[in-house]
């Protein structure tokens, strides 16, 4: 069967010009620009004075920055683990042929339709000391990061549930029958057969959650403003503050590049694993 000859016309290329501009100029170009700035001594305005890695050194000497990294790491682990566990549990329970499935799904997923700002503000109000809950974590320096975890898990667990549920629906129903005949109890089927089958979906979900973690900004600004003091500082906020408020563009750029590193570290193996699977 002859395939139509692809004309040497430029139209498809021209049509993809916006995409090319975005990818090359906006993404790669800006990233390189920021990289360059991170090697300069720019403060309020850009300067072309190269200082090598000095900004990076200053960055890691900065207590607030180091604290923000610690916060993000702790937050990240808790957030991802809680979202995965809660999301999977919700999906598995809903998959048991429960009535009112549509209503339940709507209830668990609606928080995702809210902005992080709205979420942060509502939870800020709810966790205000003296109001509903008996603990005052939100003003406790050691515990405040956990309040951010709670608020954002509330927002994102529904998304995990929706994606895992979609995956569960794709499992061959004959597998369930075979397992019944083999006398395998339901929980064991999930653990040994279904969840391993869902590994690609779970990998995607984890990747999505991880990138959400790195970008954490809105919720912190709304909920705690990075406080009390700087106890709930996160890298994204540190960078934004230094870009606009404290006018230290060089330092902020160095911070941005440091944020980029873990994202690339996750993307590369993920992309590699996917291309291997597709090409097999």
């Amino acid at each position, binding site marked *: 069967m002859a395939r139509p000859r692809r004309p040497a016309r430029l139209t498809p290329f021209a049509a993809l010009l916006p995409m090319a501009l975005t990818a090359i100029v906006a993404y790669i170009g800006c990233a390189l620009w920021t990289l360059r700035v991170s090697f300069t001594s720019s403060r309020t305005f850009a300067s072309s004075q190269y200082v090598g890695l000095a900004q990076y050194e200053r960055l890691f000497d900065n207590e607030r920055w180091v604290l923000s990294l610690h916060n993000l790491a702790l937050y990240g682990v808790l957030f991802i683990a809680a979202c995965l566990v809660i999301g999977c549990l919700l999906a598995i329970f809903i998959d048991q042929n429960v009535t009112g499935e549509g209503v339940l799904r709507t209830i668990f997923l609606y928080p995702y339709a809210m902005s992080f700002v709205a979420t942060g503000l509502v939870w800020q109000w709810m966790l205000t000391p003296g109001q509903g809950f008996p603990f005052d974590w939100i003003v406790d320096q050691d515990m405040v990061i956990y309040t951010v975890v709670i608020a954002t898990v509330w927002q994102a667990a529904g998304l995990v549930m929706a994606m895992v549920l979609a995956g569960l629906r794709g499992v*061959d129903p*004959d*597998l369930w*029958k*075979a397992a*019944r*005949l*083999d*006398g*395998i*109890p339901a929980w*064991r089927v999930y653990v*040994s*057969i279904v969840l*391993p*089958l869902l*590994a690609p979906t779970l990998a995607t979900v984890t990747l999505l959650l991880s990138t959400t973690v790195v970008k954490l900004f809105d919720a912190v600004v709304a909920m705690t403003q990075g406080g009390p003091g700087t106890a709930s500082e996160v890298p994204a906020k540190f960078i934004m503050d230094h870009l606009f408020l404290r006018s230290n563009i060089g330092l902020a750029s160095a911070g941005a590049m440091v944020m980029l590193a873990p994202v690339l570290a996750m993307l590369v193996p993920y992309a590699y694993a996917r291309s291997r699977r597709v090409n097999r």
Partner: protein
Amino acid sequence: MSNVHLRQLSVTLGGKRVIEGLDLAIHDGEFLVLLGPSGCGKSTLLHSIAGLNDVSGGSIEIGGVDMVGVDPSQRGIGMVFQSYALYPTMTVAKNMSFGLRVAGLPKADIARRVARAAAMLHLEDLLDRKPAQLSGGQRQRVAIGRALVREASVFLFDEPLSNLDAKLRAELRRELKLLHQTLGSTMVYVTHDQVEALTLATRIVVMDGGKVQQIGTPGDVYDNPANLFVAGFLGAPAMNVVGGEIDGRGCFRAGAFTVPVAGTVAGAAAATSQPAILGVRPEHIHIDDLPGSARLQGTVALVEPMGNHQIVWIRCGEQLLSAIVQDARGFAANEAVSFGIDATRARLFDPQDGKALSLHAHQLHAVR
């Protein structure tokens, strides 16, 4: 003992009565095929025997013990599904041993059983492979192996060959038949393909609309169909059916089409004048006469060459009949032919209820 006995079985699914008052005895060691079109209840029946459906009435005895309400894993059965349902992330060895490990059997026992099943099914070299790395035939054997290690006494098959292309289907069919000869276990097999039924079965149960139409050996159901449905379902091309009447003088008439039926199985019925339907298989219509058969005239409407035989469609009056010709004779369109019907192989049916007209009780669809 691995016989299965269904008494007055009723199954209701989704509010609909799918099976009603069904009796069936499956003998130890036989290969019983449940044959019928989609929706006839054969899969439901199989799932009920397995315990995957709830039963609303009657009993299912396996080895003499009523299994209604008993968990599927406790019934001594194994099942092979259309998709084989092998656990995709486990090796062949783990697939076969998973149920035993969950049941807590000692490791030595498990190893012994897996080795024995693997030897019987020629799976020894494949034990470390995952299902995605196996061929269709190998997957089928692993699915059977999974049932074997549980020392099942009855094997159930739910249309395992339906998803395969014709060549693979024929190959796996033969493997299954060989397997049955080797193992000698009781096997209950569901299919809508009459070729599979005829080649594999020791007995066939033809079903339609949740009811058993006929039980018999392949020869029985093919040569002596109990009703029009069975007659039409088995055999390809389908049996030729002509509506008409039996005159009181032992002849079937339909317009100019006359066949003496005094010598057929229909016996005494052939002597009474009544409306009837004549059924005759294409292989029993001979173009150019055979001594003793009725001579009829027609014209060739269409010829379908099939490689090792041809199907010739003959127009005779208002009828269009198919005949199988074994040699390579050429036929021109609209060529006049004379042909004969082997009346001893023709069958007569009652137009009111489709049942075969016969004196012999065992050829009707009553259940043993």
